[in-house]
């Protein structure tokens, strides 16, 4: 007799260890692929798994095999055109004409697989030198809180809702008694009819029997009516609680970037990671996060993300133009107090000298009072210029204004240090 076993409930991640080993072994290749995708991906959907391509030859497992050449006789099915002695032009590689040839050919196909969201984030954080606490804070899903959501039919005893349960019991009792009551009424009226009749007439054995039967019936119906339980398990109702994401407020994030000629690709890449990090932080803490991209050279413009990272302009730099635009957008679209406003600015430090004091004034007077946090990074500047000095003054005045000079990816995190510390402590 065979054994039939249900194994569906056994663990299904038997391969998890092997998967981790694979990822660990090809860390470098995967990291390169991740870096490639970060530059292509939109900030907003940074958090999803990612298809990773690794050149197949990098992960090849070598074996002794035959290479091309020599004599090889293959047998093929489906002959539709040839007779013995025919000579055929050598088909191109991969046409399958040579049987095993395509397998032996230099397959340069990429090995493609999908990183999970967690794995992807780990690779993303890898370069940024984030403290572990922050990593987990950013990578884990939003915290939940339990809220009431009606009643359910099952639950734990502690959650029994007494009022509801008794109400259910009552209605059940009413419903179940109804038929007994009806039949009881009928039997009783019949009984009284018969007994009045009996008193009128003389002793009649048949009526006497009838009376006895009817009163027995009334008795049994009364008993039946009493056996309806006062409360039954199916009456029980429990308070139902569901998990809801905790953040309940809204945030908007302004990305400001200098797109003058001196911002090259590597600087933009750093800037992008800087923006991503802030975005991730906001997404954790607010239910709804919007992002506004403002790029500027001598004039500022609100753009889509695509254009924000791609385009490059020449000419001078006037930072205040971007700040003014941001201010007007805030007034127009995010004026109400339930918007938490964050701003991140990336630049290489160039600014038209006379403009810098104006920037400081704009920030201190108009913008900073409305902002939660302002992070400014100078990416690989040749030397600090007037803008940096003016910003240092703003930073002295506002604790939520952070500046940082960035030479490499590991410098990004300190900009957010205070931001994260505040939240981490909370």
């Amino acid at each position: 007799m065979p054994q039939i076993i249900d194994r569906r409930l056994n663990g299904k991640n038997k391969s998890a260890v092997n998967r981790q080993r694979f990822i660990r072994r090809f860390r470098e290749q995967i990291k390169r692929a991740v870096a490639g995708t970060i530059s292509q991906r939109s900030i907003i959907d940074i958090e999803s798994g990612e298809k990773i391509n690794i050149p197949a030859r990098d992960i090849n497992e070598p074996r002794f095999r035959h290479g091309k050449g020599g004599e090889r006789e293959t047998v093929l099915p489906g002959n539709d055109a040839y007779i013995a002695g025919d000579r055929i032009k050598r088909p191109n590689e991969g046409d399958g004409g040579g049987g095993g040839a395509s397998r032996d050919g230099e397959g340069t196909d990429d090995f493609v697989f999908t990183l999970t969201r967690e794995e992807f984030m780990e690779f993303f954080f890898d370069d940024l030198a984030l403290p572990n606490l922050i990593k987990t804070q950013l990578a884990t899903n939003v915290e939940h809180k339990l809220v009431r959501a009606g009643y359910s039919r099952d639950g734990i005893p502690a959650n029994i809702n007494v009022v509801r349960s008794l109400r259910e019991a009552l209605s059940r009792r009413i419903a179940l008694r109804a038929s007994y009551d009806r039949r009881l009424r009928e039997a009783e009226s019949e009984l009284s009819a018969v007994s009045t009749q009996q008193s009128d007439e003389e002793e009649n054995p048949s009526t006497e029997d009838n009376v006895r039967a009817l009163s027995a019936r009334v008795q049994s119906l009364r008993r039946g009516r009493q056996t309806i339980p006062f409360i039954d398990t199916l009456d029980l109702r429990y308070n139902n609680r569901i998990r809801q994401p905790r953040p309940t407020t809204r945030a908007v994030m302004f990305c400001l970037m200098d797109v003058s000629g001196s911002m090259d690709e590597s600087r933009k890449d750093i800037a992008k990671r800087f923006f991503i990090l802030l975005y991730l932080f906001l997404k954790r803490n607010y239910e709804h996060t919007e992002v506004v991209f403002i790029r500027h050279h001598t004039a500022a413009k609100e753009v889509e993300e695509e254009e924000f990272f791609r385009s490059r302009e020449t000419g001078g730099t006037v930072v205040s133009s971007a700040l003014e635009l941001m201010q007007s957008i805030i007034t127009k679209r995010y004026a109400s107090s339930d918007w938490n406003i964050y701003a991140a600015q990336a630049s290489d430090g160039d600014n038209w000298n006379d403009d810098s004091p104006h920037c400081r004034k704009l920030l201190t007077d108009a913008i900073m009072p409305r902002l939660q946090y302002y992070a400014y990074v100078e990416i690989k500047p040749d030397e600090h210029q007037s803008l940096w000095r003016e910003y240092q003054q703003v930073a002295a005045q506002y604790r939520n204004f952070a500046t940082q000079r960035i030479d490499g990816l590991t410098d990004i995190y300190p900009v957010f240090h205070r931001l994260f510390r505040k939240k981490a402590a909370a």
Partner: protein
Amino acid sequence: MNAPATTVRTPISHGSEWTFELIERYEREIAHIAASFGLDTYPNQIEVISAEQMMDAYSSVGMPIGYHHWSYGKQFLGVEQRYRRGHMGLAYEIVINSNPCIAYLMEENTMMMQALVIAHASYGHNSFFKGNYLFRTWTSADAIIDYLLFARNYIAGCERRHGEEAVELMLDSCHALMNYGVDRYKRPSPLSAREERQRQHEREERLQMQINDLWRTIPQFTLPEEARTTSRYPVEPQENLLYFIEKNAPLLRPWQREIVRIVRKLAQYFYPQRQTQVMNEGWATFWHYTIINRMFDEGLVDDAFMLEFMHSHTNVIYQPPYSSAHYNGINPYTLGFAMMSDIRRICEQPSAEDERWFPNIAGSSWQRTLDFAMRNFKDESFIAQYLSPKVMRDLKLFAVLDDDRSRKLEVTAIHDDAGYRQVRRALADHYNLGSNEPDIQVYDVNREGDRSLTLRHTQHRRRPLHGDVNEVLRHVARLWGFTVRLETVDGDGRALQSYSCDAPPRGQSS
């Protein structure tokens, strides 16, 4: 088909839903029919698993218990990716050559599929595992699960003691030589996990002593040149590279030798499967086809079941022609099923041609003939023996010679009277592992000099080695611990090309 053996009964079930009770009832009927055909099987163990679990099983070459290695992770990621994107359906079944014979059913399958898989795996493959001489000789179904468990625990223990990385390097190198870890002719001693464990400790100690002994022979005097060449070590070339390394590599630690041994044992366990793909699948497909048809004749399954069955069966045995974009070699299911069915036809309704080609089996009992074929052949000899002109015509087989000296390919034979024998010979050669894999053997160890190991590749029909060879030599050098050379010689022993690889610095190999 035979006339229904019993009176027509009512179908076991309708519709595609399955339950455990239904599986049991189908299994009972299938077992009954299989027994009436005389199939001899190990007891069955049928396990129902989910698609994810199937992917897990898939990526560990079907072993229910495997040690950890990144290459299985790679396999898993590849399978997962293709499955998720719908490029590939999962195999309907995996069956393990063990006693009891374990077959996996996927929970997503319909009732028809479950019945098909039971007939195919639990009775087809199972009887093949029990009957075929290669499996009987080379694998011991009773011990494999225990041995796998032993292997996994042992390797996990090594990882704890010596670090995951050292073990991984070791496994990488062994895997690279896995196909050369097989005794092709000598019968191995049967596996037994208990004895393995018992002996393993002694073996560690003793081996280390023996190896040291081998190298203790300090040369007292310089041998004359001729004398040295005659005393080659090993005296005869050795085909089992891993075995040679396990026994003779000078620097391996005992645990490393044990890992070499584990990989070698597993290679040996899978060796019969690689040699009987066509027969094994053909046999299983033939029996699921025959058994399910008998069930239909007996009225145990309804028309809807049968239509769905025919649909799956046809998909399984579909052979795209060579010119199709889907062509990916000869489908072993097609070839195997065609040949098995054809043998039955030759026995039952021989034509004049069959009388000429197969005088011994034409008109004999088909069950006995098939059973004999299943027991005593492997793919190569099975095709050489039983491939009939009719099957060649049906599949329109033709042979093409690809010779790099000529500018064009040449059609050497097709499915006609002049070509049958040649097509058959060429196809049989297809399945000859000996000519598919480069012939590489241990040729010499320089015992008195630099301790280098020399491998010899004898060319088959002038086919050169693939460019991977240098990579593989690196792995051999890591195992051997000293310089490794590989020389390619032609059929007459003339050297054509040589490769060499120096040993990695000491620290890495241990």
